[in-house]
């Protein structure tokens, strides 16, 4: 879907200019031909594996398609149904939006805070970095989702801790008021990937800025506000765009923790989970395809807004 949206730091885009000149046009033409030939398998793959299915799904989104029978053209019916006669669709949209709005800022704040601590040049930094990165590798996995049920279950770890203070906690994953909260915590816990990127960003800030600021009498808080934060805005922006896209597409956590239902009482019915249920359980692939396209539009729209807004708060060193 939309994970092909790639935001690259500027340096990477404008590489060193190509040398060579006109001396060996024959040779360079031959090289170009070879290059295209080498690219051909990849391009064939792109056509067959990516672009083909994308176009097919666009077509299917205008059909009634059960997977088992031929698709029947129904025009915009699927799209109309989504917003007029499917309350579960609207509620899946709500659940996902809440999830994104709450978990992304929390996760980024957490990632930045830890990156700042790690950037102090602790001994054994590499080890800490790996440990904190681990949840990012595991976060979307089935094992962790199962572990989450153990931690936040009625007789889970959290309630055992609360019990030590005499508090009787509810079954967090089984309660419609709290279940989404546990998934948000799960998402925040996978802060490792943005943290690594923040760390790299922090390393890029010349220490001479801090030295100069210290000479001028700026305290750590002031330094953070006037140096670190502005110079880090491109990295924050990058992480923000990426995490919004990723969390809109979250699926596994809800699928495993709710046993594939989005329960209790639809409180964890993620957009993609509802899409999956429509397509593969209810054999309504046309509707599922239409949902996928709306999701693409939502994500593309949000990313676009993000880019527009970035003009006002993202500071690239080279733009004066």
């Amino acid at each position, binding site marked *: 879907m939309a994970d092909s949206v790639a935001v690259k730091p500027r340096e990477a885009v404008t590489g060193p200019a190509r040398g060579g000149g006109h001396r060996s046009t024959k040779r360079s033409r031959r090289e170009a031909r070879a290059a295209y030939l080498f690219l051909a398998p990849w391009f064939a793959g792109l056509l067959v594996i990516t672009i083909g299915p994308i176009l097919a799904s666009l077509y299917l989104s205008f059909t009634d398609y059960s997977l088992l029978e031929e698709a029947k053209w129904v025009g915009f019916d699927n799209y109309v149904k989504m917003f007029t006669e499917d309350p579960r669709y609207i509620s899946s949209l709500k659940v996902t939006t809440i999830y994104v709005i709450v978990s992304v800022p929390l996760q980024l704040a957490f990632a930045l805070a830890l990156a700042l601590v790690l950037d102090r040049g602790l001994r054994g930094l590499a080890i800490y970095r790996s440990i904190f990165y681990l949840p990012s590798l595991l976060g979307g996995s089935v094992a962790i989702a199962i572990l989450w*049920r153990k931690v936040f279950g009625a007789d889970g770890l959290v309630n055992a801790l609360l019990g030590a203070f005499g508090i009787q906690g509810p079954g967090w994953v089984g309660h419609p008021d709290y279940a989404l909260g546990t998934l948000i915590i799960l998402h925040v816990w996978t802060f490792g990937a943005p943290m690594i990127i923040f760390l790299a960003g922090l390393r890029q800030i010349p220490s001479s800025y801090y030295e100069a600021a210290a000479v001028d009498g700026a305290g750590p808080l002031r330094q953070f506000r006037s140096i670190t934060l502005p110079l880090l805005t491109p990295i924050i922006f990058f992480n923000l765009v990426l995490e919004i896209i990723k969390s809109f597409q979250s699926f596994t956590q809800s699928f495993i923790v709710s046993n594939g239902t989005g329960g209790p*009482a639809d409180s964890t019915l993620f957009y993609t989970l509802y899409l999956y249920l429509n397509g593969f359980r209810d054999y309504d692939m046309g509707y599922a395809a239409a949902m996928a396209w709306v999701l693409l539009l939502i994500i593309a729209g949000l990313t676009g807004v993000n880019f527009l807004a970035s003009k006002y708060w993202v500071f690239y060193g080279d733009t004066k």
Partner: protein
Amino acid sequence: MSSGKKMWSAALLATAVLAVTAACGSDSGGESADGKVKVRFSYWGSDARQKMTEEAIKKFEAKNPNIDIEGEFSDFGSYYETLATKVAGNDAPDVITIEIRGLREYAERGALADLAGKVNTADIDAKVLATGSLDGKQYAIPTGVNAFSLVVNPALVEKSGQKLPDDTKWTWQDYVDLASKITAGSDGKVFGTQQSFNPGYLEIFAAQRGEKFYNGNKLGITPDTLKAWWANMQTLIKTKGTPDAAKSVEIGAQSVDQSLLGTNTGAMGMWWSNQLGAINKASGQDVSLLRMPKAEGATTGGMFLQPAMLYTASSKTEHPAEAAKFIDFMINDPEAGAIILSDRGLPASSKVLAAVKDKLPETDIKTLDFIDEVRSELSDPPAAPPKGASAMEDILTRYSEEVLFGRMTTDDAAQKFLTEANASIAG
């Protein structure tokens, strides 16, 4: 060789390799290289089932050296999506295992072949066999049967100072009372029972009130029945006969090993009878089956047999004869039965059942005795539910949750459930 030529040949080689690997990937079956007829057989389940099935397949291949059976196995969670994708891609397996709730989806869309006369069904109970027949065509052959029943751990009941009920007479009120007394008698260490939102439970409950779950392409259940069904659940929570709503939902989403019975923290529960072995193993206790409680003054107990699984053949298979032969072997051959035992339900074929009875594990003998005991009271096995029934358990669970968490009144939930469920099976 100039560097340009080298590059050319390298690129060509790369493309060629890709083309070859792609060709290997799209091997669509039919005949194997050694002239054997290849028949693909899809099923789901545990590793243990896979081993068992592979063993049975070997037996079949030894008897039919010209047929090569290729098992296509996946876990239950991803089974139907893989199957639907294969069927959509004109790559359907020749022999397909299916559940009764999904049968119509495939049969009515022309994906399955009529097996009448191709597989010997003489030893299968006619009423059970009829569940695999739609519009006069025998699309599916049941592998074995289950009954939705009450599972009890007698030791835990007695430990909390209660007696096992007389299950030929007990009512829903007795059941609710007993559950709360067990919880109270064990100082809350053991819950009386566990909530179940299984459509099988509602089917039995409704039958006792003279209502069918499915009446053609509509639900035959009245709002009053739903309200009474939920009222029992609410009472159970209020009287602590079951855990609170949140914990009930949590354990409901887990496998039977994690159930209250499985972890020895509950004395009763409702399951399909084939779960008895798993509960027995998980709890390490001697658990038994009981008749489901009855409504006051009910003339029928409402319990019924349902096929555990069904074997079907793809309508697009190139080898219908070989596919049917394999199904026949799996259903009727005592040697296959001796390997599979009760893994796909208690064998549907009475001959196979008689042949393997001595080899069955103790819990299966118990189940068998139980089913024999209640056989005369059983209702007819319900016909295959309408299309869209695969979603029923989720819809029922969702509205049950709304009720148990007090987010909907039973009146409201009953109306909304009926509307949504009817829409789901009409579409």
